[in-house]
């Protein structure tokens, strides 16, 4: 998974996930053919406490299902079930 052959995306966290990750934004390097689901798996490997939350995620500000193919510089956001209102 080198930067040369892979891709690099931007990851955003909010609320509870930002607390788990200890950051609100980071860069993540992935294999060139990675999907949104692969990215989520990689983040859960890095921050296992994420797995204890009901997670939603989005790619470029649209809800993702897991099978979307990632491109360089995509914006992936990982967050808990929303609680506005």
């Amino acid at each position, binding site marked *: 998974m080198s930067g040369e052959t892979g891709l690099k995306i931007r990851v*955003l966290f*909010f*609320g*509870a996930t930002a*607390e788990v990750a200890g950051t609100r934004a980071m860069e993540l390097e992935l294999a060139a053919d990675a999907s949104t689901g692969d990215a989520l798996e990689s983040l859960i490997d890095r921050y296992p406490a994420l797995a204890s*939350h*009901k*997670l*939603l995620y*989005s790619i470029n*500000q*649209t*809800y*993702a*299902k897991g099978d979307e193919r990632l491109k360089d510089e995509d914006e992936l*956001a990982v*967050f*808990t*079930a*929303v*609680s*506005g*209102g």
Partner: protein
Amino acid sequence: MDFFELTNDPLDINSVARRVVPPECGATVTLDGYVRKFTKGRETQHLFYEAYVPMALKEMQKLIQQAKRDFEISNIGIVHRLGMLEIGETSVIISVAAPHRRAAFAACEWLIRELKRTVPIWKKEVYADGEVWIEGEQAGSTPA
């Protein structure tokens, strides 16, 4: 006109409600959502709201478009407050103007239900002895 906004400033329900009214309408239904003092018996001191702002605005716009397809209504305004809110302060206003009231009530109810399910905003409840990010009931992404 329709509008959807996020703001850190206090909300004024009357001005929001009046902005949605076109001449053909006979009723505006406005939801005033505000900060509860007690949730499940625990006393909240204040609330903090955070949003993924660009996506939240997109999702609010989608809700307005969907509601205007599904209900006989004219205009919708949605404004959600962010940041620190004291007990009793308004966190969300949804105003729906329609020629007739039934459609306005139905659309307003649908809009708040969907907003709570799909718009990426989170609230943190702050108590005397701690704080908790509230997680929604359902992992409810927008259906494909």
